[in-house]
């Protein structure tokens, strides 16, 4: 569906190095802007790009603003987080020593089993004591996580009622995700609470800034899965916004390329190269969640493999071996950097005409000497090895995806193998490297227009995404919606079709609440299983498991264009 309109979308990606912004009108990039990110004041960068783009425009014509920001990622990586008191209902299983995420972890009695049945109750007195400890220690933030809480959130909710009196804010594990994984649920809940304060401030400032600019349209924030949600809602789930930067670029590529084939998408930056895979034109998601700063989480995110090779990777030659990256010590030598880089190699080889060729050559002299060859040959070797490193990482990634374990005979016999038909490349060195990379992964290549602001385009065009996990247990007569904490009574005749229908309805409501538009709700069933539960030798009920999601993708009115 193509909806013509003269409304505009403003997409902004506040990245680590640059802040990029685009103004999109009728499938076209109308304006683009790029400024250096002021790390100490992200708002300042935001102010500058919007200034650049909107000075000639009427803010009344804006339809929406979408923002991708590193604020959450930076807070975690730079450890600018708040102290969080954690209350864990761990039950039997892994020892507390393997679950302790910080020094303020308290383990309390209680247990919910895999079917969501409460086996042991919580100890209310100990919770009050813990609450007083938090107060005494000046801990304002609390995370409460129970084992199997997505199957039955009752104990988490009860604990919250008690602890509310002692702290400023509480995050509950079951609200983070419907997936099963207790250690990841702990990490996710912890991070959500740890960055809440810093993130909420950012939200307030952005809202003020937009107000000052006379922008009153909905503001969306990009998530790690390449989808968006309304900025007001984002304050409750700030952890969803981590690692949205790489996701922005990948969504940008998706927005600028034709076709619905299996594909490899590459964003070659200065320090790293991000690799994402599209299956039938849809970017693949991490099976469980993204990993940040050593924390494995349940945050739904695009499956992006980041390798330490980029245009500005430092090149060294040690014991006759060439080492490319993983560190970046500055820009390429051709731009005054201290060390030779793959970009210098491309300049020497004449693949690109940027920078000062003389400087690149000078920087390559010592390397060539160590390699016992001419500067030109050294550049050739380095270029080739850089391409090979990236290409082999792509092929490894595809193999890993194709070797992913499956759990049914049908899938193991009929399992579809991913076979990329095209390679998309964006980023600084895209043009000089694409051809050779395509040869190495045996695919035609495509470099989209506006590749340098792919991230901002991705933010602008992303749609609101959400998922929902439904578990129906007809023996217990209960349907559970993990993420919402709902437990609804059901009849013994309840079927899988009922579960799918309810899942879709509830997902629709949830997505609309998050800011989705009706026409963007491309809902699909991602898991759909039904098991007979048998007691003795007769069927006692059905165990039905359904997962539904709004596919990661682009907003409908722009899907066909750009």
């Amino acid at each position, binding site marked *: 569906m193509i909806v013509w309109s003269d409304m505009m979308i403003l997409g902004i990606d506040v990245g680590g190095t640059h802040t990029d912004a685009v103004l999109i009108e009728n499938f076209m990039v109308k304006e683009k802007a790029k400024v250096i990110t002021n790390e100490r004041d992200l708002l300042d960068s935001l102010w500058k790009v919007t200034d650049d783009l909107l000075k000639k425009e009427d803010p009344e014509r804006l339809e929406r603003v979408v923002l991708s920001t590193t604020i959450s990622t930076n807070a975690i990586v730079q450890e600018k987080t708040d102290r969080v008191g954690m209350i864990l209902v761990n039950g039997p299983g892994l020892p507390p020593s393997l679950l302790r995420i910080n020094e303020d972890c308290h383990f309390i009695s209680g247990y919910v089993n895999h079917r969501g049945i409460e086996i042991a109750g919580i100890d209310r007195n100990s919770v009050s004591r813990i609450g007083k400890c938090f107060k005494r220690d000046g801990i304002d933030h609390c995370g409460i996580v129970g084992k199997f809480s997505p199957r039955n959130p009752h104990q988490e909710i009860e604990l919250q009622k008690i602890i509310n009196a002692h702290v400023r804010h509480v995050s509950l594990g079951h609200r983070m995700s419907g997936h099963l994984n207790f250690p990841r649920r702990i990490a996710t809940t912890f991070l959500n609470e740890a960055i809440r304060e810093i993130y909420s401030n950012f939200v307030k400032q952005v809202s003020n800034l937009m107000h000052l600019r006379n922008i009153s349209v909905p503001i969306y924030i990009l998530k790690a899965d390449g989808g968006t949600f309304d900025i007001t809602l984002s304050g409750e789930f700030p952890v969803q916004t981590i690692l949205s930067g790489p996701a922005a670029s990948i969504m940008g590529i998706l927005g600028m390329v034709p076709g619905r084939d299996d594909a490899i998408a590459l964003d070659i930056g200065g320090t790293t190269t991000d690799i994402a895979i599209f299956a039938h034109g849809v970017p693949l998601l991490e099976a469980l969640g993204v990993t940040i700063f050593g924390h494995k989480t349940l945050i739904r995110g695009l499956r992006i493999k980041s390798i330490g090779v980029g245009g500005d990777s430092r090149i060294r030659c040690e014991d006759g071996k060439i080492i490319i990256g993983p560190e970046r010590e500055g820009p390429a030598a051709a731009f005054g950097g201290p060390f030779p880089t793959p970009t210098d190699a491309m300049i020497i080889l004449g693949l690109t005409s940027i920078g000062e060729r003389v400087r690149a050559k000078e920087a390559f002299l010592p390397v060539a000497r160590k390699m016992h060859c001419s500067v030109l040959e050294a550049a050739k070797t380095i270029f080739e090895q850089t391409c090979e490193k990236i290409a082999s990482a792509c092929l490894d990634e595809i193999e890993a995806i194709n*070797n992913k374990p499956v759990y049914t005979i049908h899938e193991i016999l009929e399992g579809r193998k991913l076979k990329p038909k095209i390679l998309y490349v964006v980023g600084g060195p895209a043009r000089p490297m694409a051809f050779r990379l395509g040869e190495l992964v045996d695919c035609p290549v495509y470099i989209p227009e506006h590749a340098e602001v792919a991230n901002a385009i991705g933010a602008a065009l992303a749609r609101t995404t959400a998922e929902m996990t439904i578990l129906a247990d007809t023996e217990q007569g209960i349907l559970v919606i993990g993420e919402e904490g709902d437990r609804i009574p059901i009849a013994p005749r309840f079927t899988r079709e009922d579960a799918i229908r309810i899942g879709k309805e509830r997902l629709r409501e949830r997505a609309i609440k998050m800011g989705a538009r009706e026409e963007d709700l491309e809902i699909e069933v991602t898991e759909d299983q039904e098991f007979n539960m048998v007691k003795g030798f007769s069927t006692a009920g059905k165990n039905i498991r359904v997962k539904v999601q709004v596919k990661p993708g682009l907003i409908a009115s722009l899907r066909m264009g750009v």
Partner: protein
Amino acid sequence: MLKKERKTGLIFFPAFDWAISPTHPEREERLLYTQDQVFEEGLLDFDNIIEFKPEIATDDDVRCVHICVPHVKSVITDSHLVSAGGAITAAEKVMKGEVDNAFALVRPPGHHAMLVVHGARGFCNVNIEAIMIEYIRKHYGPRRVAIVDTDCHHGDGTQDIYWNDPHTLCISVHQDGRTLYPGTGFHREFGGPNALGTTINIPLPPRTSDEGFLYILDHVILPILDEFKPDLIINSAGQDNHYSDPITDMYFTAQGYALLNDRLSPHIAVLEGGYSIEKALPYVNVGIILAMAGLDYSHVREPDYDPLTLRQSDEISRYIEKEAAEIYTLWKRRDSMREELIGNAEYIRRKKPIYYDTDSIREQQEEIVRVCNDCGGLVTIDSVADTGNRIFAVIIPGQSCPVCRASGEEMYAGTGKDRYNYVYFQDRDRDIFLVK
């Protein structure tokens, strides 16, 4: 508890789309709650626990072990090839050194499947451990292998396959055959004439608890393993000794399974039976995986675990102590027992009725072994089943001597099809399988 971490391979294949029948214990749901528990505990996120996708075994892999009547495809489904393939993947990862040990958490199981297969018995069609072991021998050379079968039912299929193989030690610990299917697995079942003592049966009285199992482990199994000196230890990790299992009567716990696995330290564990799918399997499997990976399993227990009700009686303890001593004495006397058994005989004959409970088939079998001091001995089997099939099989053992080989080849050549529907020739050394 500080332990050395080990790299553990996990092949998880719950076959969510396969069942013997909709309400049969061996059905789709069997590993569902185990999956929930393994996922919720986050076990696959440990750097030293690596999940692998199972390979699919081939008909050839099956023929290295079984005589399938009339042929492989007629007695198995794809699910059996995936489950056997899962065991093979576990072995591959260990043999190549990619992991220190591996657990094939796969279904359907296999330890009741015997050498000749007319159909399914005890929920088993083909023996997935034996297929894995012969795969290892075919691709990595002869190996001394010890199988410790801790399923609650006697591992009669595995015993049958390795009855005459002195290079494979089969130890089965199980609930006393007088009280449980398949009704076998007594002390006197001790191996064929050329492999006496490499079949060991340890029947335990009903209501044996952790204490009894660990006593047997420490006083019989580990000492015998020490003397047998296997290259590989395989655990047939059935989980139906659990106190909550619906079709057995033992008091073993998740903590007990973890302790047993830790002390046994198998290279490869393969799931067998275990049908308490909600109350036992989730916890037992988490315990086994943590123990194999050298991680702290001391907090693994069932939510309803009560040590008081699960104590074994003093009478049982005394019985088990006596039994342990008897079995160990038998093992020590195996060489002199062999002389008594053989006397001057050149061939030893064994007749046995076999019932396929899952498929309701009856079979009569006569097995003849050539007495041989140099190898496991030539084996011939004459088998007739009430399916109407009568077959004759000539089996040349692994690491066979020239005499056994030559007489086996002659025997196959000289056997006509007049009395038999099929005549088979299996040569494990040369990987030859013939049918006429």
